């Protein structure tokens, strides 16, 4: 089973110190625990959907995993290789090799393409950097990449501004796939796109995954698209994972109160449905000052005394992990890990 694990994240933390603005000296007045100890595994060829609202730490997690910012603590493994160790070393070649195996598609296709480069140059750039293919083949491979994402060879000579949002995102995907990465992080890849175009891009991503066996980390706040894309789902709240389950299980029987609220919050395009909605009181607290005990307790209707002082650990209920002291099926508060 462990040979199947492509990505393993263990207790990943990333904290940001908040410094006071002074003239002579600046001291730390607080700390933002953006990502505060998250762990998960993604099997080869599968997709983990990482869900959460703004400030939950999902984008920070992505940036740390890719070595774009250093971690505060924790480890990331790509197969057996210790990713964060490589990124923090001075070994340029090892870093470059690793980068070719882990790529990223950003949210905003309008900001992530160099406006002064043609599509051809944009897609050739990874070849030039990684040189994993013979120079004579660069152009051919670039055109192949365009084909995979449903663009035509004539598009290669155009500039990004000549394309629509959806097409630009295809270019970004082609660029990310040019080096045939094993792992692709998709950070809200369709949020900036029109609704009628989203399905095109998501369907394309799934087709590519089926064809190339790429492993995805799909980050989004849109649960409906997460459902469509993911095999497993992890929900983040204020820097922690509160629930992790298989996609079907998650939507049919979510256990954590926050997950339940998230699912019920989504408006359904069915006028006959009664919303029966869970409305969470208040707002997401600041990561600068998270609540004591369970970070969700101030907004949780099921909070009891222990929730206010102790932080629940993520416990395995049988391929379904939940961090909550209240659970209708199992009394987790008596679980040895939660003593």
């Amino acid at each position: 089973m462990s040979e199947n694990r492509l990505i393993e994240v263990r207790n990943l933390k990333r904290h940001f110190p908040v410094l006071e603005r002074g003239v002579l000296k600046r001291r730390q007045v607080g700390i933002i625990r953006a990502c505060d100890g998250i762990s998960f595994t993604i099997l080869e060829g599968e997709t983990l959907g990482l869900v959460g609202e703004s400030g939950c730490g999902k984008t920070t997690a992505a940036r740390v995993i890719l070595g774009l910012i250093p971690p505060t603590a924790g480890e990331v493994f790509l197969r057996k290789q210790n990713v964060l160790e490589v990124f923090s070393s001075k070994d340029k070649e090892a870093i470059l090799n690793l980068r070719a195996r882990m790529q990223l598609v950003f949210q905003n296709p309008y900001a992530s393409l160099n406006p002064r480069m043609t599509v051809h140059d944009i897609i050739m750039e990874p070849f030039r950097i990684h040189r994993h293919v013979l120079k004579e083949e660069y152009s051919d491979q670039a055109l192949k990449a365009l084909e995979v994402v449903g663009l035509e060879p004539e598009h290669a000579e155009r500039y990004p501004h000549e394309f629509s949002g959806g097409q630009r995102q295809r270019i970004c995907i082609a660029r990310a796939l040019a080096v045939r990465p094993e792992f692709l992080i998709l950070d809200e890849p369709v949020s900036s796109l029109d609704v009628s175009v989203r399905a095109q891009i998501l369907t394309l991503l799934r087709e590519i995954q089926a064809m190339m066996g790429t492993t995805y980390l799909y980050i989004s706040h849109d649960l409906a698209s997460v459902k469509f894309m993911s095999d497993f789902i992890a929900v983040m709240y204020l820097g922690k994972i509160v629930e992790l389950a298989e996609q079907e299980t998650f939507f049919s029987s979510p256990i954590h109160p926050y997950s339940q609220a998230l699912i019920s919050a989504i408006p359904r395009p069915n006028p006959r449905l009664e919303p029966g909605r869970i409305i969470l009181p208040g707002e997401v607290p600041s990561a600068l000052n998270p609540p004591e005990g369970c970070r969700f307790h101030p907004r949780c209707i099921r909070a009891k005394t222990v929730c206010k002082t102790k932080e629940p650990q993520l416990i395995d209920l049988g391929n379904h992990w939940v961090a909550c002291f209240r659970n209708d099926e199992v009394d987790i508060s008596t679980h040895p890990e939660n003593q």
Partner: protein
Amino acid sequence: MRLLEVKDLATYFSTEAGTVKAVDGVGFDVGEGEVVGLVGESGSGKTVTALSILRVVPRPGMICRGKALFKGTDLLRKSEREIQSFRGKHVAMIFQDPTTSLNPTLTCGEQVAEVVRTHKKMGKSKAVERVVEIFQSVGLPDAALVFHKYPHQLSGGMRQRVAIARALCSDPELVLADEPTTNLDVTTQAQVLELMKELKKKLNMSILLITHDMGIVAEMCSRVVVLYAGRVCEIGDVMSVFESPLHPYTEALLYAVPSLDARKPRVIPGSIPDMLNPPSGCRFHPRCVYAKHRCTDEVPQLKEVEPRRFVACLKH
């Protein structure tokens, strides 16, 4: 007589690159106490329609033809001076981004009080009382404290509540809400939608709810107007439109969105047209699975195929 009747509205933008016919013959109506959804994607003309009704279309946009009858009075024929007594008073607007629609140099209380005093002719202290009252009714915690806060000191959800308070403080009969929850987190969106439902019930307001989210339409609206590339595709009550969409774009839109309950989304080929050079005839024809030859030449007119059920498609 309906509260709002828009007839053949056309607003064009003349740019160096050409004329963008952002709204090109749009007509619909909103009744008293009704929530009507105005649905479309980018380039559909939904925001420009709302801005046209309020006569706040930015340059180089110009309203070229049409009528916007509010209780029988054509807002498009009023002078700038006359329109000011409607704007904010009888017809108010909530914009998509509360960060840019609130004045960053005034406290939340001050800017809403400004609106109250302009339209209600109240003294300063009375206005302050009224503002605190409204802040409470939109669910702002510690309303008296929020009064003295600047917009940047509040979260997105709270800012949007202030924007809603500002829109409602003069008791308008009609509220134009342009994607009021799009920029908010899902759980905050749920709160704001519930708030809007409560307020609508309490105040019997009419709302023109502009959105691209069919889920919000299904939940909030009784009728829906579907726009595509500056024109109306379909109008009808929400139940009928969702259960048996008549226009191919409406149908495609309903099936294209990944939803929690549904099966796999159905991809719509192509993309939204370039509004500088929209397709001839029916603007949706390049992406339409039912398109025939005539769709390239003829512009389909909006026809009433059943009572209060309209569609602009050569299939009907």
